[in-house]
């Protein structure tokens, strides 16, 4: 399992790594706007039930020295956070009534 993308306990989420492990908020937000609600819902339905378990797993590791597979899992949780709004609130990818306004995260901590 040397090239496993995620910690073994979370291998069921590996199909989501390619599309949903993103490095920054602008990338995640662009992914949200370019996805259909079906795609977002599928990602949410797969990750949300595992979120608490993932947090408990990651909490045992040092935040400033996460292994790569754990960091990918954390990035999936960052995407889950941003995709929760379309699913739980808006029922559509974009925020209603926001017109052409732009508002993007320019500096964010890593990890």
């Amino acid at each position: 399992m040397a090239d496993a993308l995620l910690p073994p306990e979370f291998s069921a989420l590996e199909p989501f790594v390619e599309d949903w492990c993103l490095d920054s908020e602008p990338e995640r937000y662009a992914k949200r706007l370019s996805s259909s609600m079906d795609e977002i819902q599928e990602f949410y339905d797969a990750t949300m039930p595992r979120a608490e378990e993932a947090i408990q797993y990651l909490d045992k590791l040092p935040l400033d020295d996460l292994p790569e597979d754990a960091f990918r899992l954390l990035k999936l949780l960052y995407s889950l956070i941003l995709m929760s709004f379309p699913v739980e609130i808006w029922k559509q990818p974009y925020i209603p009534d926001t017109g052409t306004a732009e508002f993007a995260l320019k500096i964010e901590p890593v990890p």
Partner: protein
Amino acid sequence: MTKNPKNLKIPKQAARQYPKPPEGSWTEHCPELDTDPISYENSISPEFFELEREAVFKRAWLNVGRVEQLRRKGSFFTKEIPGLKTSLIIVRGKDDKIRAFHNVCRHRGNKLVWNDHPAEEVSGTCRQFACKYHGWTYDLEGKLNFILQEGEFFGIDKADYPLVSVHCDVWKGFIFVNFAEQPEKSLDEFLGPMITAIDYPFEKLTQRYYYRGDIRSNWKIFHDAFQEFYHPPILHGHQNPVMRQADYKDQGFYTSHFQVDGPHRVGSTSGGAGGKLIPEFYNPIEQVMRSGLFGPWDPSEIVGDELPAGLNPGNKDNWGLDSFQIFPNFAIVFWETGWYLTYHYWPVAHDRLLFEANAYFTPPRNVRERLAQQLGIATIKEYALEDCGTLEATQMGLESRVVTSFPLGDQEFMCRHLNKMINNWVDDYKRSRAEG
């Protein structure tokens, strides 16, 4: 000055819970304000914008960043001030003093420090600043050090060509500049006792998230949405089950305390009661991450038995947040779980602003704390973008000039105060110019 004959009619419970000052309202409590409808001509007029640049933005102290952005000797960042069509270099010198200079080479006027895109801000660490054009070089104190082929220049003395400096001072790690030739007040005098009373451990909150937005409304119109708590249950009401409560939808939201000191103001509220209500009041993601609009539910390590000095100036029970508005365009919002937000509203034109929001937390000790911060800042965007769209619509409505007089309620006290302060500063500037 006739007293407003229409006394406020506050429901009894709210009147008990959120008592008004003896004058009957926060607005009447403030001697500089009346209760008349106001004009927003100052937010739609290009001519007023020209005056405002001179009268306000070239006279007031303006916050441009924090000392954590300049960790070492030689650390610098550039700061664009679009409304003044200028760019600054803010730098920590060899003597550890922080200085500000206009970002312009004295030779042929080229912008001195930039990379790739002239309009974008940059940061880094260096020993000197060299112009990309002809290589003139300045030290960290702004002194011109080197002219290529100096002998070709007619009677030149390098001492006559330092970078153009801008007044710069620091309060609690916040770096301020002042574009006046000679500021009318020192930074501490300008900030006044209400602001300088704040003794908060800013230096411990180094985990920073920085948002920036380009928005088509006047900076004051946008600012106003962030200094009243009257709109959230309506504009943002769908987002959050807390705000869907009948209390807020039907009865509105009450600010528990307002206070002004000079041109600055603060509003305090009971905050958002993050995590204190039954689970049904929270979205599923909030329950998992223990966080939401009001930031992480669990207090950070800076939260002790006593609030830092200067916070909760009204000494109210159930304190949740203070929203300090530092004139003209800077706000600091302190939250009960031990983090803070800053907002900057930079005018670009009479109908356009650059909006910056910074969230500062203590460095997370584990993934759970990190994720709680991440949800807090993600939620800020969901709310802020609703404001952005709506305020572009407000600007359009105002610019039609169909309506020219607007009633503000007592909950919109801080909007009325900003409007008045801006008009006062512009009137004062016009007067001093007329007296010449």
